[in-house]
């Protein structure tokens, strides 16, 4: 028997029963489609997370008071806050770094008739570099303003859209809490990041926030940017030993502060999305298995239904292997067809979702190939049993079958 004839025969059998063939392959279509979509979406999610981390600032370290691990009951043990001297010390003592303090408060901001609660960050000019968030137009804080804690502010673009309603903000005065504050610059647009609108923010000199809004000299967070790529590990150690010295801590276990590398956070998030991808992929794989069982079921029904046909074929000289190949090729053709359709749907679905959610659309040839070969394998595995059943039929029993 020629292979071409075998394929033609299988194709004819599939076409003869269009609806049934479609329903049979539906399981494989859904299975392969969901596996491909899940893995691709997972990949896109991981990529968009790492991209966002990079946009926060590369080689960035967060230094915060308190302990990284939460205490019993989830209560974070209290610790002495930092002050500007700590910031200064890190800038002086740790080589090749740029340091920016950050104090975040959430006062009510009033612009004209509009008022809204907006995060206000007290910082200095290093912030623009360290947090990778530059000025679009206007000017940075001048040294006098920083020293005096003048009431000047730099605003994010969301405020222009929502509160200035598109009017020119430079030189205008807005009210932050009870302080009237002059707008000197507008930040670059950054968009959404980790579910937060990074453009909905106001920057003020650190001393202005301390005196006018917070009423204390505390610094909540110190951002440190390592100026040399890949040196965050060294910088982290330097900061830790410096702060231990300043806070009179002898053992690392007693640290009442912690230093976080954004790379670690990125890795942690990436590994979380990876786990999710694997989990969802595994669930999708189960549906693929169910699809395979569906194929087996239909092939078994088909063998029973076509017993007489098999008898005719055996009578006119088909060998065991001829019948076996015929049914096996039929099931492989069905599952492969389903696999290809599923692949296309999966990729199409991924494209749709990523374009809606503004995520990068990445194709993974490995996953596509795997999905394809998996569907072929399902045809082989779940087609074999029914095919063998057909091939082993006794010619005379098969012929007499009604």
């Amino acid at each position, binding site marked *: 028997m*020629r292979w071409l004839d075998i394929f033609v025969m299988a194709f004819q059998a599939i076409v003869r029963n269009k609806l049934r063939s479609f329903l049979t392959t539906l399981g494989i279509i859904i299975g392969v489609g969901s596996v491909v979509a899940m893995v691709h979406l997972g990949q896109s999610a991981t990529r968009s997370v790492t991209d966002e981390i990079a946009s926060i600032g590369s080689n960035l370290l967060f230094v915060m008071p308190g302990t990284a691990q939460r205490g019993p009951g989830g209560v974070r043990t209290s610790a002495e806050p930092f002050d500007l001297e700590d910031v200064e010390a890190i800038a002086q003592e740790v080589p090749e770094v740029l340091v920016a303090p950050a104090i975040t408060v959430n006062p009510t901001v009033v612009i004209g008739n509009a008022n809204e609660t907006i995060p206000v960050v007290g910082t200095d000019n290093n912030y623009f570099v360290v947090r990778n968030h530059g000025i679009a137009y206007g000017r940075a804080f001048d040294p006098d303003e920083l020293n005096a804690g003048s009431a000047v502010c730099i605003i994010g673009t969301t405020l222009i859209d929502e509160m200035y309603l598109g009017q020119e903000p430079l030189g205008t005065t807005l009210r932050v809490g009870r302080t009237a504050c002059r707008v000197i610059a507008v930040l670059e647009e950054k968009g959404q990041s980790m579910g937060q609108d990074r453009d909905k923010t106001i920057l003020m000199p650190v001393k202005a926030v301390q005196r006018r809004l917070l009423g204390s000299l505390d610094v909540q967070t110190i951002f440190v940017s390592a100026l040399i790529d890949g040196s965050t590990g060294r910088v982290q150690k330097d900061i830790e030993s410096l702060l231990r010295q300043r806070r009179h801590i002898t053992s690392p276990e007693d640290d009442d502060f912690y230093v976080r590398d954004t790379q670690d956070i990125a890795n942690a998030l990436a590994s979380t999305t990876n786990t999710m991808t694997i989990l969802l992929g595994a669930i999708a794989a189960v549906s693929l298995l169910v699809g395979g069982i569906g194929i087996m079921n239909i092939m078994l029904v088909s063998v029973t239904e076509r017993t007489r046909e098999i008898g005719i074929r*055996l*009578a*006119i*000289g*088909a060998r065991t*292997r001829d019948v076996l190949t015929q049914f096996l090729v039929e099931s492989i053709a069905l599952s492969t067809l389903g696999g290809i359709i599923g692949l296309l749907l999966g990729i199409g679905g991924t494209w749709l979702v990523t374009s809606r959610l503004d995520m990068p659309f990445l194709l993974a040839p490995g996953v596509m190939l795997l999905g394809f070969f998996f569907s072929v394998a399902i045809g082989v595995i779940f087609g074999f049993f029914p095919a063998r059943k057909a091939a082993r039929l006794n010619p*005379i029993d098969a012929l007499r079958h009604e």
Partner: protein
Amino acid sequence: MSNSARFGNHDPDARDLPPAVIRMRNIFKIYGSGSAEVRALDGVDLTIREGEFVAIMGPSGSGKSTCMNMIGCLDVPSAGEYLFRGVNVGGLDRDELALLRRHFMGFIFQSFNLLPRVTALANVELPLIYDGVRRSERKARAREALRIVGLSGREPATPNQLSGGQQQRVAIARALVTEPPVLLADEPTGNLDTGMADSIMVQLAQIRAERGITIVMVTHEPDIARYADRVLYFVDGKLVKDGTPDEVLS
């Protein structure tokens, strides 16, 4: 080993008579066991020689169909020896039997047994597909076989578009397309009216006259059996009469 060597002709009795194609010795087919035992064939001895047209007759349950299935290698005997062209069929495995059927036997059934929803041409092509014949040659041979049975122009018709007589002609074309030396017909006219039955029988007689092939036919109608030149009459699994139609049917 080539098939012709394998299924070659080594008949010790062949002197003046044509060589034996089918030779059965003491064939039994037993279903069930103990008190439920049924002897479908109960010690059958028979010889059919090349070129003969043999009708197998008998009341229903006499074992005539079982005998036919044995001859066609569709069923295996419980005991006894069956030589097809001198080869002991009992020593062949499933696939060797399939090859034997493919190359040496053509089958015609009472219920036609065409593949449904497949064209007449494709039905006739089927044995050639299993033989690995190229598409173009296959189509040509299938067309020729359909022409011989008078169905030129009906190639694209599916069985449900054909009359019973036409379907049986397609089945004859399918049986003959591999040019087998033996044609086995199980009640070929059983589902046809008298006029149609006669024309099918004329067709078979004509094919036999032209090709000199051996035909073995099961029938329960004496009129049909008269087309044969020898009648085997079975009762209760035993061959009880063997002679010309006139001798046996009188």
